[in-house]
């Protein structure tokens, strides 16, 4: 494990301008780094863009999966920290979608010299309703999600996994497989889903000191606007931008607006 090449473990890909400041794009629960592909072209014109898959997702190394480590957001944050260290990043901007926004908060706290700004795309520090806080979901709702995961393997099968996972050099093999972006070992997906939706990270927001952009959508079932307002209020150094977009994935449903908001924020920061 210690000797494992982090780049292949996390299927790290680097594009854009080699000498420009670095932007790391971190996918959330569900799919993999392909989630970013509609906004990468706009970002790579001005930045060095680092993409990766968390262990357990996309083209990451299956043998690196450890249900204990990845049962807490800290485990995913260690992936981010290790990728930052492997690439020796300094003052990079971390763009995290959904649960990854909170992973970025934890990673920035661990290696503040490496992460200089945060972009939180459709973040939620707590998905479960709590006394006086409306995350939008109950524990029973999360159980329903787990059932949906059980019912839909989305092209994942133990027989095909090696083909998808084991050929980082030949991504076209994986691309040809239907649904491969979201194809995840169901055991892995269950752990990631539980960690994502049952973790309460509200207290961690107070640790954010870096310039932060909170991007929310006008209508997002998973991260409703009052949650976006909560995050913005909890981080004094944050800006809140509401995108004219519906759903939880503005980088797919409104890629131009999403890219523009990120680029504006980064330009102002730099």
């Amino acid at each position, binding site marked *: 494990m210690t000797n494992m090449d982090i780049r292949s473990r996390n299927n790290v890909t680097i594009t854009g301008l080699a000498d420009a400041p670095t932007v790391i794009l971190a996918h959330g629960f569900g*799919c993999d780094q392909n989630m970013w592909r509609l906004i990468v072209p706009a970002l790579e014109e001005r930045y060095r863009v680092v993409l990766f898959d968390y262990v357990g997702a996309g083209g990451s190394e299956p043998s690196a999966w450890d249900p204990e480590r990845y049962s807490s957001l800290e485990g995913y944050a260690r992936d981010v920290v290790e990728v930052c260290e492997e690439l020796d990043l300094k003052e990079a901007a971390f763009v995290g979608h*959904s649960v990854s926004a909170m992973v970025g908060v934890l990673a920035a706290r661990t290696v503040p010299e490496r992460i200089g700004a945060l972009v939180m795309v459709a973040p939620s520090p707590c998905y479960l309703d709590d006394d006086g806080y409306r995350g939008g979901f109950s524990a029973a709702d*999360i159980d*329903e999600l787990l059932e949906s995961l059980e019912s839909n393997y*989305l092209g994942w099968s133990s027989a095909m996994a090696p083909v998808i996972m084991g050929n980082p050099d030949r991504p076209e093999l994986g691309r040809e497989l239907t649904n491969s*972006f979201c194809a995840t070992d169901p055991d892995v997906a269950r752990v990631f889903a539980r960690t994502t939706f049952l973790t309460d990270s509200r207290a961690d927001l107070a640790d954010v000191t870096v310039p932060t952009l909170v991007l929310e959508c006008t209508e997002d*079932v998973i991260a409703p606007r009052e949650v976006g307002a909560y995050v913005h209020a909890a981080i004094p150094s944050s800006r809140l931008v509401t995108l004219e977009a519906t759903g939880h*994935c503005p980088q797919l449903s409104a890629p131009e607006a999403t890219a523009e908001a990120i680029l504006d924020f980064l330009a102002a920061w730099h």
Partner: protein
Amino acid sequence: MRRLGEEPAPSGAGGGANAAFTSLLEDSAEELYESAPCGYLSTLMDGTIAKINDTLLEWLGLERTAVVGRRRFADLLTVGGKLYHETHFAPLLRMQGELRGIALELKTQAGARLPVLVSSVVKRGGQGEPLLIRTTVFDAADRRAYEEELLRRRREAEQARAEAERARREAEADRARLADALAVLQRSLVPDSLPDVPGLETAVHYHTASADRLGGDFYDLFPLDGERWAFFLGDVCGKGPEAASLTSLTRYTLRAAALHDPAPEAALTTLNAVLYERYAVGGDPRYCTAIFGVVEPGPAGATVHLASGGHPPAMVLRADGGVELLPTPGGLLVGVLPDAPVGSVRTTLAPGETLLLYTDGLTEARTGPGDRYGEDALRAFAAGRAPASPQQLITALTGLLDGFGDGLDDDTALLALGVPAARPTTELPR
């Protein structure tokens, strides 16, 4: 679109059948859409429902006016389904343009859940820009019940496997604990190693036939005073743990008796009294055979005084290559009678001579159907190797025992004592 009813009727059909066929084909595309056995809906890219068929409305228990332009597709789903839709379904549909056979649950107006299989395709405009999403919805209640049954069985099987694995690990831990305990007990039956005796060379071999490694054979060697050393070797009746408890009693009785009175006959007489009192008096006679000896190394060799209770005779390999048995006439099994006679014998070991004590595991080893190895064969084996140092002899006998394989079905103990040759012995070619 041409009406389906305008298709020419198939030739050769009878008049009545023809009319029925024609009326069937009156079905319009509109009618087919609205009353299809599956649900249809079309949504804008943001999910807003633009068109929905009667079948699906009926399943949902909703009025068209309450749905079209007012609800999104995800609104029709259970909360868990919404989460799945946002994290998997919608992103995949955006990236791939289509998605087939996704299992979701619709929430009906009456609050019931309807398991469905959903397929969606993005319709694109002339420039490839996405325009709307077409979705078909199949009732999958039976299919889902079947899948849930499979999942339930799989979980049960996994649970059973996990429990079996836990039981296996516990059993393994139990076995390891037992093996540790047995190893400790085993060490109480025979010494870990023999003490160094000045002027003597010693060697030993111990084999247990039972899988728990608790044997019914025993031996020991220990100092009596500055000059003399006591040793014994024997065989209790039975095998396994029962024999082992008798072995333990025997060994410590002999050691204690020797400290009190080092005469070999006295040690065996004491052992006889102890075993008789402990077992035979209670109607459960247990016995052993044993040779007890005292050796006193001296400048010209070692004097040996042996006493035996019913044990196979000791053997001496002389320096000149001769082999002698040392019978102890009159000795009986130890522990059977209240006053058992003990036979004794004395000999002297010159340099290069070796005394061998053994249990009948060696001589009773099966060498073929109905055949036992026997005392004569052992004597011949020893004659073929004399003179031999204790270690040479034990090494040769260990090889012999290994050669018996499964034929060696009893515990076996071998103890050899010898006076080192004056000059290094060299094997003479034979």
